[in-house]
């Protein structure tokens, strides 16, 4: 592969304003195939807004989003999902009245194009059912597969969030604080699942848990007040005195 390979996902001067407030300010960002990257930054730095711009939930005020060399700035969220951008939410957004299996089934059915079918029963779609069960297995949710989301503790629900995103077989996976609310004992299940993703998938994580960021990411972008403040390898970020001052310092600097 050449050094100048087309990035999987790229933003150019991406800007998002809400009235006078600039949430994301001219961000140039690249995610290569197979990348494991993180965005960190203090609260209100625009991290979730940035994810929403990538996923197509928000339209940028200026700038563009490119996926594998094509400009997808104008595409709606659902179209971007079809092109391989999946995301999880900071706060669980699940089909709360449905079972874990149904939750994952819906995502897989949507991806493989089974969802519009009206005649054949959902349960006869064995390939969809098997794939959904496989994902549930991967995330150690087998014992909960039949339980409704409302009956699950928050940490387990978090795993369903990720199972749904994986059900979309993404090429770009955006994880918005996947560890939020996950008990320490279950954190390794999520990290394991991320570790076992196909190598060519680009994964971008937003996370406050610094141990997770430094374990997972090979490249870190620091966002402050909507703009890129610093970017580099975890070692470089950790050693950067400015970053320590604005961000890591507050958290007592993991090391």
């Amino acid at each position: 592969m050449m050094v100048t390979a087309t990035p999987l996902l790229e933003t150019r001067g991406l800007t998002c304003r809400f009235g006078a407030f600039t949430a994301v300010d001219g961000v140039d960002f690249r995610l290569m195939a197979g990348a494991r990257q993180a965005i960190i930054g203090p609260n209100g730095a625009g991290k979730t807004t940035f994810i929403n711009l990538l996923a197509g939930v928000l339209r940028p005020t200026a700038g563009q989003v490119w996926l594998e060399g094509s400009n997808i700035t104008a595409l709606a969220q659902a179209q971007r999902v079809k092109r391989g951008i999946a995301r999880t939410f900071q706060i669980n957004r699940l089909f709360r009245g449905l079972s874990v299996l149904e939750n994952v089934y819906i995502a897989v059915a949507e991806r493989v194009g089974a969802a519009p079918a009206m005649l054949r029963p959902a349960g006869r779609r064995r390939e969809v059912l098997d794939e959904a069960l496989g994902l549930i297995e991967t995330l150690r949710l087998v014992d909960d597969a039949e339980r409704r989301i409302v009956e699950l503790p928050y940490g387990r629900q978090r795993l369903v969030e990720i199972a749904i995103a994986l059900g979309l077989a993404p090429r770009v996976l955006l994880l918005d604080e996947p560890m939020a609310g996950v008990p320490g004992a279950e954190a390794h299940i999520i990290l394991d699942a991320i570790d076992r993703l196909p190598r060519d998938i680009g994964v971008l994580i937003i996370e406050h848990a610094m141990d997770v960021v430094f374990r997972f990411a090979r490249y870190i972008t620091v966002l402050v007040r909507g703009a890129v403040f610093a970017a580099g390898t975890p070692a470089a970020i950790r050693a950067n005195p400015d970053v320590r001052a604005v961000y890591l310092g507050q958290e007592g600097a993991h090391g």
Partner: protein
Amino acid sequence: MTTQTVAAVRSDVHPAARTLAERHRPRAWEVVPWLAAIAFFFALPTHLGFGTELLITILFALSLDLVLGYAGIVTLGHAVFFGVGAYTVGMLAKYGIWSEPITGLLIAAAAAAVVGLGSGLVLLRTTGLTLLMLTLCTRALLEEAANLGHDWTGGFDGLDSVPIQPIFGIFEFNPLYLTTQYVYALVVLFVGFLIVRTIVYAPFGQSLTGIRENTLRMHAVGAPVNARLVTCYTISAAIAGVAGAVWAQANLYVNLSTLGLDRAATVLIILALGGYGRLYGAFIGAILYMVLSHYLAKAYPTAWQLGLGLLLMVIALCARNGMIGIVEPLLQRWRRVRSAP
């Protein structure tokens, strides 16, 4: 760290998968309502008018359940489609254009579907209270249009003595002797029920429940939410149109009541009483509502709605989802107790 070997999960082994894989299979108790309907025919031949009305109401409630119970579309305008279906067969027959009943149903379904598609494309861009108000307005507009267009629709008086041909040229719609109407309505309900049942257990129906449970997440899994809602709304409109058409054929008249707010609200109350998103809520609710209003009206002609109102309040306060919301947890508990060693 140990290397994980993911065990191959067989969907026919895991209990959760079995539940999903087998939920569309007909269960033994599902014959009960149909046997009851047949028994009704022989046991209460003098009440077939009431029975026909009940069967039509169930079909109408079933069509609403598809949009409200499964897709989560809140509407106070579903009588629009009932009325369009009723007026379609009524006017076609009255003006000598088409009076064959079964093809009449298909024409009524198509007409209601067109109205459903047209209004759905506009209205379903909104949700919640806005949608509720817009459906309410649409219904009011159509009712007023039917009222004003009395040269065609008969206005306030409606169209009576609508000439409907006998079914297959044999079974006449006799306004005094209602066997044809009852059997006809029962067969149409059965077909309509099979259609709705098939849809809700298919992946399409599953995706409708996804939209109901979390629309934002449905967008995030790449679902064309609006297209799916409009599709569901159109199908539901067609079924409601068929219900209205049977009503017009069975009664041999059409009037503004088919488009009325009363009808739109009643069908909503029926689902609230019976339970929504459960197929059989429409049956339970319609039976409960119609039997109660029938007997309450006899016993307390001036204040019968008070009894219904009280029942509705009790159910709304105590049960999460109508009568089914009361029965279902009890059944589950019973099953758990029975399956426990």
